[in-house]
C-alpha cells in the first residue's frame, strides 16, 4: 500500500520531519537523522563566524542528496526579519521550502499569528513552499491555507517544553477543515505524542528537542520512527469507538461450572 505524504509537489515516505538543533554532538545528530528515517530536515540560518570561516557546517555532515532541506526562520520576531532570513535560506539550501516562524515571545516562543499570515502571503507570492508554525488556531489555519501555504503547522505545546499535545481539540478541528497536510510541531516529548497526532489525522509531525536531548538520541529517533508508523497505520486501520461501558472480549455464555464433589 503506497501512502505517500505530498508537500509542495514532493512525495515523502516518512511522516517524521526532524530538527537538527540541540544535539550534544554532531555524531549524535548524524546518528539520529539516520535512525529516524526522516526525509525532511530543518536547519537554521545563522551568521558565519568570520574568525573561523572554514569551520564545518551541517552541509559537511549530511548527504543532502538524500534529504529535503527545510530552512527555518527561527530567531525572527518581525515580518521583515522573517522575509530576509527566508530568502537567505533559499540561497543556502537551493530550495523553495521554508519553515516560517515569527516569534516575538522569548519565554514561551509562541508565534505571532497575524505577522505569520502576512509574511506567508508575501513568501507564497515569491514562490516559496511555506510551512508556517502557528498556534493551534483553526481560523488562522484556514487563512494560511487560503493564502497558499503548503501545510499548516499547529503547535502541540511550547517549543522544547516536552509537555506533549495540549491542543487535541483544536487539532481535530484544524484537521477536519484542512485540505493541505497538517504537521504537528513543537512540544512533542515521546513517541506516543507523535502517534496520537497521526491517529487524529495529522499528516506528519516535526520533532527536535525530544530526540536531540534524550539520553540516547539515536534510540529515541528510532522510537519516534515507530511511533509515527504506529499512528499512521492506526489512522488508516480505523480505530474502535469509545464506549462508556465495557464489552467482554471473551464469550459470556457456555462458561464451565464446577460441580460439588458427590457426597
Amino acid at each position, binding site marked *: 500500500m503506497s501512502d505517500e505524504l505530498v508537500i509542495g509537489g514532493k512525495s515523502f515516505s516518512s511522516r517524521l520531519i526532524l*530538527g*537538527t*538543533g*540541540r*544535539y550534544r554532538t554532531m555524531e549524535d*545528530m548524524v546518528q539520529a537523522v539516520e535512525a529516524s528515517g526522516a526525509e525532511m530536515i*530543518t*536547519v*537554521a*540560518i*545563522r*551568521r*558565519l563566524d*568570520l574568525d573561523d*570561516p*572554514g569551520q564545518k*557546517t*551541517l*552541509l*559537511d555532515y549530511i548527504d543532502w542528496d538524500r534529504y529535503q*532541506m527545510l*530552512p*527555518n526562520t*527561527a530567531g525572527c520576531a518581525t515580518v521583515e526579519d522573517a522575509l*530576509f532570513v527566508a*530568502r*537567505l*535560506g*533559499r*540561497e*543556502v*539550501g537551493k530550495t523553495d521550502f521554508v519553515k516560517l516562524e515569527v516569534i516575538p515571545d522569548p519565554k514561551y516562543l509562541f508565534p505571532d499569528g497575524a505577522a505569520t499570515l502576512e509574511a506567508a502571503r508575501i513568501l507564497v507570492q515569491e514562490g516559496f513552499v511555506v510551512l508556517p508554525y502557528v498556534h493551534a488556531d483553526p481560523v488562522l489555519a484556514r487563512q494560511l491555507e487560503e493564502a497558499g501555504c503548503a501545510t499548516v503547522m499547529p503547535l502541540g505545546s511550547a*517549543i*522544547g517544553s516536552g509537555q506533549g499535545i495540549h491542543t487535541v481539540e483544536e487539532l481535530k478541528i484544524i484537521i477536519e477543515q484542512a485540505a493541505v497536510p497538517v504537521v504537528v510541531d513543537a512540544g512533542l516529548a515521546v513517541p506516543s505524542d507523535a502517534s496520537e497526532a497521526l491517529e487524529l489525522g495529522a499528516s506528519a509531525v*516535526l520533532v*527536535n*528537542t525530544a530526540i*536531540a536531548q534524550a539520553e540516547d538520541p539515536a534510540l529515541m529517533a528510532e522510537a519516534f520512527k515507530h511511533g509515527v508508523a504506529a499512528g499512521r497505520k492506526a489512522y488508516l486501520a480505523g480505530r474502535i469507538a469509545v464506549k462508556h461501558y465495557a464489552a467482554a472480549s471473551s464469550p459470556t455464555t457456555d462458561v464451565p461450572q464446577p460441580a460439588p464433589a458427590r457426597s
Partner: protein
Amino acid sequence: MIRLTVNGKARSLEDSTDLESYLVSFGVNMKHVAVGYNGEVVKKELFPEVRLRDGDVLEIVRPVGGG
C-alpha cells in the same frame, strides 16, 4: 578606505573589490553560504558583479542546527 559592516561588525578594505573576491579572501566555502547585501539577498552567480562600496552592510550566513 572602504568601511563595511559585516555580520554586525565593522570591517574595512584598502581598495574596492567585488563580493566574490572578498569572500575568497576569508577562505569562505562558497557552496555553503548565502549573502545579504544591504538587506537584499544576492545570488551566488552574481557575487563577482557586486562591487563593495563604503557603507555596505553584508550578512554572510550558513546553515546550522535548528528545529
